[in-house]
């Protein structure tokens, strides 16, 4: 442990590792003193120091104690310190320092006197500090803590107004800081966390004139204790609260506050960058699901601290975690640029996953996924399956916007191939089983879809709602409505009431499919009651982002009811439901759809048509109205047939499995005299006829 080559007296002292004592301009080798100490003769050692270096009793003891401490002779150090009556010394010091707390004017005159008394004070405080350190190393932690505490009490007594910088020499300040820093550490080691918390707060809330680094170390250590001790600290005492300032009320708040302050300080250049601070903050904020706040923190960090690609990738994770996938993708596009870090696996996978959720980005995602698969080598080999999985998802999504049947079926089979390929890597991943189920269902391979849906429920123990919904929808597509209802009921049994909304909606639709409108109405009525109760216990929904998928969506209930009444031709009820729904969402293609149907039923073809057209103008990809427009036009006359055909083809481009679109397209072809084309369309319609789910499969994802 020979380090710290000081510039002090003799050069060879350091080089030879021989210790020397230095005071009053005199230097002396320690060998003789050490020999006396080894014999247990403290007094002789002390007197030889007093003579050799012309010191007083306390000075000699302090030096000896330090010598013993450095030699690792902790018991010896304690013996030496026992010889000084530290408490008495503290008492004695108090008046000498507190005499002139506001002595600014007469400072020069008092300076010499001050420096003498401060020298003595420091001697005592340093001795206590070393005593505490010795006790700490001997495992006598409580005693050590009490020593430190007495020092801080004394210092606080002396400087009631905080330590005035002008009056304190550096050495004394340093000792005080050391004591302030040591005390909470001691309580922590003694596993007395409540005392540790108070010591940390005392260190940070009182005026000790700590330097920036010392203060930062204490703040960080305290934040770590708050985050990970598992002991709730309780809010700080009232005394420390200042009017109008933020007072953290639990561990997490206090820790996050301290860590944010630390990040700010290093941004301002007051302290050196400490990577662990940002990691702790990352942990605390992402644990609290506040990754958007974390993103702000990353953005504020000065350039140069992180490599810019790391920063982009971290930000992408933060934004994606906060649901802002577009922003995340923008960042990933930059970081995956060929001049940056194009092979970063995590970034590639995240980018591909984000793209897989949007059919217009899916093609881009396919590229990322391929790159991910190519780079999943060596120790990253385990991620190959993940790459294949996102590739499958992207391809499946891309198939939805493909312009030709040929391309679509190619993409769909490629999607299945990728997902199947992924299975051998990710056997135990139930999500993959689910995704395969959806993929098969969307391609109307209902038997395979059913198998996977069941497998998913088994693998997850029925714990995930979407598994139940997939199973019920697949059964409904197979026209096995009563079985689908059994599944829905089973799922309802496994669900808490706030998450029952989508299942009840499903159930109502199943009732309709089984021509049991009264039961369906009953189900909707129950749903409405649930909406009311939900509003009561959670308060009104404030923003769109608060509407979670699982919660009951009131608009959908009214819309469903309107639909139901419209199929029963209860037009008065339809109008009531439409009114309620419109109050929640003024412009909606779904509602215009029903209005149009109502007009059509009353023979108001022109009004019906304009409602349908409005719906399509509002939502260009709203298929049901495109089909209805096509159907209406097909009846008007030969001149309208080309337009009808356009609408229907367009509907089929978006939704190739739409049975009604195929049917009406067949009619159009027939009316136009293209019998062969008509036959094909009718055939498609009849094949699909038996495979429509009551809600679209993509509604589950």
């Amino acid at each position, binding site marked *: 442990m020979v380090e710290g080559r000081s510039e002090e007296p*003799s050069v060879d002292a350091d080089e030879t590792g021989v210790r020397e004592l230095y005071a009053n301009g005199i230097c002396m080798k320690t060998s003789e003193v050490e020999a006396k100490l080894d014999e247990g003769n403290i007094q002789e050692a002390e007197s030889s120091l007093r003579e050799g270096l012309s010191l007083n009793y306390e000075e000699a003891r302090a030096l000896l104690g330090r010598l013993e401490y450095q030699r690792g002779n902790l018991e010896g150090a304690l013996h030496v310190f026992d010889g000084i009556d530290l408490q008495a010394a503290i008492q004695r010091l108090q008046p000498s320092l507190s005499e002139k707390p506001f002595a600014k004017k007469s400072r020069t005159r008092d300076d010499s006197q001050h420096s003498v008394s401060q020298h003595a004070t420091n*001697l005592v405080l340093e001795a206590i500090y070393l005593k505490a350190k010795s006790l700490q190393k001997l495992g006598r932690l*409580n005693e050590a803590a009490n020593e430190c505490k007495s020092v801080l009490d004394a210092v606080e007594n002396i400087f009631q107004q905080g330590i005035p910088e002008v009056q304190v020499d550096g050495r004394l300040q340093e000792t005080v800081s050391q004591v302030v820093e040591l005390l909470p550490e001691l309580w*922590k080691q003694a*596993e007395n966390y*409540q005392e540790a918390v108070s010591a940390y707060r005392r260190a940070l809330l009182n005026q000790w004139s700590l330097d920036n680094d010392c203060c930062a170390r204490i703040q960080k250590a305290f934040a770590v204790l708050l985050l990970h001790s598992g002991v709730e600290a309780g809010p700080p005492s009232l005394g420390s609260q200042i009017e109008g300032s933020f007072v953290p009320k639990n561990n997490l708040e206090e820790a996050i506050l301290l860590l944010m*302050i630390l990040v700010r300080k290093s941004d301002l250049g007051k302290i050196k960058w400490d990577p662990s601070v940002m990691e702790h903050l990352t942990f605390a904020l992402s644990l609290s699901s506040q990754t958007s706040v974390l993103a702000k923190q990353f953005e504020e960090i000065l350039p140069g601290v992180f490599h810019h690609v790391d920063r982009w990738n971290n930000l992408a994770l933060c934004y994606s975690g906060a649901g802002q996938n577009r922003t995340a993708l923008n960042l990933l596009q930059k970081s995956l640029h060929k001049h940056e870090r194009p092979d970063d696996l995590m970034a590639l996978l995240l980018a591909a996953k984000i793209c897989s959720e949007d059919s217009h980005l899916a093609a881009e995602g396919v590229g990322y996924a391929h790159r991910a698969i190519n780079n999943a080598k060596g120790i990253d080999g*385990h991620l190959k399956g993940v790459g294949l999985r996102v590739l499958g998802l992207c391809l499946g999504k891309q198939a939805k916007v493909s312009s030709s049947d040929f391309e679509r079926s190619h993409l769909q089979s490629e999607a299945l191939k990728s997902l199947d390929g992924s299975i051998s890597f990710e056997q135990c991943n139930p999500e993959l089983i689910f995704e395969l189920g959806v993929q098969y269902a969307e391609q109307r391979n209902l038997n395979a879809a059913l198998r996977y849906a069941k497998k998913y429920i088994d*693998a997850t123990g029925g714990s995930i709602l979407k598994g139940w919904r997939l199973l019920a929808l697949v059964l409904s597509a197979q026209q096995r409505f009563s079985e689908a209802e059994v599944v829905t009921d089973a799922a309802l049994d496994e669900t808490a009431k706030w998450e029952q909304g989508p299942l009840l909606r499903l159930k109502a639709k199943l009732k309709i499919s089984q021509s049991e409108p009264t039961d369906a109405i009953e189900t909707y009525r129950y749903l409405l009651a649930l909406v009311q109760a939900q509003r009561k216990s959670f308060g009104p929904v404030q923003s769109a982002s608060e509407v979670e998928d699982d919660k009951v969506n009131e608009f959908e209930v009214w819309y469903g009811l309107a639909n139901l009444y419209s199929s029963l031709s209860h037009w008065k009820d339809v109008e009531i439901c439409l009114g309620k729904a419109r109050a929640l969402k003024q412009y909606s293609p779904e509602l215009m759809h029903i209005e149009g149907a109502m007009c059509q039923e009353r023979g108001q073809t022109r009004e019906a048509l304009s409602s349908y057209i409005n719906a399509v103008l509002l939502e260009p990809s709203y298929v049901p109205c495109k089909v209805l427009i096509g159907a209406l036009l097909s009846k008007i006359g030969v001149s309208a047939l080309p337009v009808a055909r356009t609408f229907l083809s367009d509907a089929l481009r978006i939704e190739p499995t739409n049975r009604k679109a195929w049917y009406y397209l067949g009619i159009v072809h027939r009316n136009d005299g293209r019998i062969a084309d008509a036959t094909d369309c009718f055939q498609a319609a009849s094949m699909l006829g038996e495979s429509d789910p009551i809600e679209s499969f993509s509604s589950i994802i």
Partner: protein
Amino acid sequence: MSDPSSSPSSASASPTDAASSQTSSTEVPSADSIAKTQAAIHSLNPILTSIPRYLSSSPDPFALLHDPDISSQISDLLRHPDSGTVDNNVCRWLYDTFQTSDPALQLVVLRFLPIIAGVYLSRVPLRKTLSGFEAVLLAIYSHETTSRNGQSITVNIPDLSHPSIYHEAKPTAKNNATEFNVAIISPTLDPHRTVRSTQRAKIVGVALELYYSKISQMPVRSKIDFCEHCEIWAGQDGSMYRDDEVKQGDEDGEKETKAGFKEGRIPLPWELLQPVLRILGHCLLGPHRDMALFDASHAAIRSLYARSIHDIDPRAILTTGSLLRLGKIALDPKFNIDHTEVKMTNVISL
């Protein structure tokens, strides 16, 4: 929490690893607590093969919590392939013991929560009845529901533009207008009489929150059990994220791609993963340093990190990734300088 006594080792009859997980909040058990403990030990008699004599003669909940012999017997029973059924007597005992409402005895039950939750969740796909486990979990869940009055737990995310007790900020005009971001740490709780499958993760998650709030009083072994089960839950080999010398080489890497999966993998929704990560954070970075616990938690975090990348779950990647790097920093001497140490010089001066 009451103010703890400051004596480092309050007298305890336990001859066990008590010292290693001693916390400052042990108190002398009340007469009522002693009587309940006595009853609990008595009813444990027919379940276990042997009970240390000192426990029967002087029943002390603290000693019961820390007795390694009792713990390992109960743990073995809980891990038995047929455990957790409705008539399982250990589960019955744990349930009854928790229902005594004696805080010290409830700690004894919580001590086994890692194994109960671990075995239970991994066994769900086997379609066995596990109502014995479920009864204990529900008891813990409803205790927490009652004590929280069903309320959610929220955190105000600080905003440095507001002054706080630790820093100053220039008051700006919009200060008063801006509200704090409120983060929901734990959701509102509804009472449950049975474990509905979609509520399973939430119920276990809430039970783990209670475990976390008592974690400083838990024996190290219980925490290590927890870490081991987390590794199983993750179902993902994490050895490629080791930093030490035994890092998997490329040849092993190839093998990993096929054999990277393990039995017992479970879905890890955030409501479960979040309390799991809080507990692992404590195990890795808590003030009570224990190398075995550190290693166990580090291994669990590696597996969960691998898992979160497999799930491409950004929030989980951020949380587990930060723990992974903090674990690395904790082992790096460069970051572990003791600043309270005195500068050692050969020239000692006044």
